């Protein structure tokens, strides 16, 4: 039986796992965006927080993913369900590129432009929302792009703790020593990563100040 036959025969399961995968990546990235971008903004305003915040996000990034799932297991509420656990872990991994790109993006805005705005009497909030964020948007979206693509790959490991997603096929295929089953998980995951990369890349280009 070749790959296409396998995927056609199991199309409802393939679809289900793909949607599960999307859900894990989508929710975790959204969470990471909601936390990471404000944190990135915060450390441009309070330079003293810069090192601990970026350092912390860096350390999380160095923890092997399986170990991170293990660490989070005893956490109340989170540890009770595999998908909660997976989403939290994925969100934690996505944090670093988001915080860093937000920080770098804002810091990279032309100093003369910011100074002119401040000199004309713009408040900190007006500067942030009308000048700094719009001009940093391209770099911030680049961070979202990196985070999403990493997440799509990492989310396959979530199957190891029973959180579902396309990793199910990969682990099942490994156990069965069946390449077709592995590919039935790997190919849709790769396609998803590519799609996310291309679409967010397009958005990044559109939103970058020319």
């Amino acid at each position, binding site marked *: 039986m070749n790959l296409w036959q396998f995927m056609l025969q199991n199309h409802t399961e393939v679809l289900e796992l793909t949607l599960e995968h999307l859900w894990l990546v989508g929710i975790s990235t959204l969470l990471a965006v909601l936390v990471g971008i404000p944190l990135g903004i915060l450390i441009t305003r309070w330079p003293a927080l810069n090192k601990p915040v970026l350092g912390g996000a860096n350390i999380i990034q160095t923890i092997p993913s399986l170990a991170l799932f293990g660490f989070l297991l005893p956490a109340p509420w989170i540890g009770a369900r595999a998908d909660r656990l997976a989403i939290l872990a994925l969100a934690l991994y996505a944090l670093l590129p988001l915080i860093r790109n937000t920080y770098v993006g804002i810091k990279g805005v032309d100093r*003369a432009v910011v*100074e*002119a705005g*401040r*000199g*004309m009497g713009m408040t900190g909030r007006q500067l942030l929302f009308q000048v700094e964020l719009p001009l940093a948007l391209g770099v911030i979206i680049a961070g979202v792009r990196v985070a999403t693509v990493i997440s799509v790959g990492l989310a396959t490991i979530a199957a190891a703790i029973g959180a579902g997603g396309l990793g199910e096929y990969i682990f099942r295929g490994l156990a069965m020593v069946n390449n077709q089953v592995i590919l039935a998980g790997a190919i849709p995951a790769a396609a998803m990563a590519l799609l996310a990369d291309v679409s967010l890349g397009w958005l990044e280009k559109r939103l970058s100040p*020319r």
Partner: protein
Amino acid sequence: MSHPDTRPAIEFRNVSYRLNVQGKEGRELLHDLNLEVQRGETLVLLGRSGSGKTTTLKLINHLLAPTKGELLVDARPTREWDVIRLRRMIGYVIQEVGLFPHFTVERNIGLVPKIENWHADRIAKRVRELLQLVGLDPEISSRYPRELSGGQRQRVGVARALAADPPILLMDEPFGALDPITRAELQREFLALQKRLRKTVVFVTHDLREALLLGTRIALMEDGRLLTIQTPEEFPTCAEPLAAAYTNAFGAISEDP
């Protein structure tokens, strides 16, 4: 503004400014400055890079705060001003222009009126008026700064600074990056404009020729200190060695109008 106000628009009283590098005292950029800027005059701060001209300017709109002494704008210490109010009554033009690249010309010029909550119609009218005032075609109001020439950008920068009709204008080498012909053009226009508007202007430059042309008084600075203040007529014969050095350096051209 019904009665003429004779108090200086800006007054430095023993103002020093020292850098603060991570809690430690750094270099002193400005030392014990005493200076009065009268209403309606164009005071030029002349000096080399690092002489403290720009620091002096940034103290006026409180982008920097004096570490010693006191600075009065409209007879009120800058420390006591609501800093946002203070800055909105002071126009600010810098060499790199600092136009917002993601705003059209119209939005750039209308920025201060907009954050002052002017009505949209009033802003649009004011923008047209200002474009005309600085000699630009109202056609360009929908363009982005990157689509303009250097001279046009600088004109937009001046228009933006004038938008809310501030009584004080700070100009930090506004024409420094322009080619000589455009610069001469803008200098002439500035003089004509200033004759009509009578703003209190503090103008930073390292170009003696520009200082002589535009200033009602010239303040010569070096190493964070004010050496002397002279009128353009007195300056060429000033005994101060640095003033003489300037006059010599520009000697060949100082006879120009």
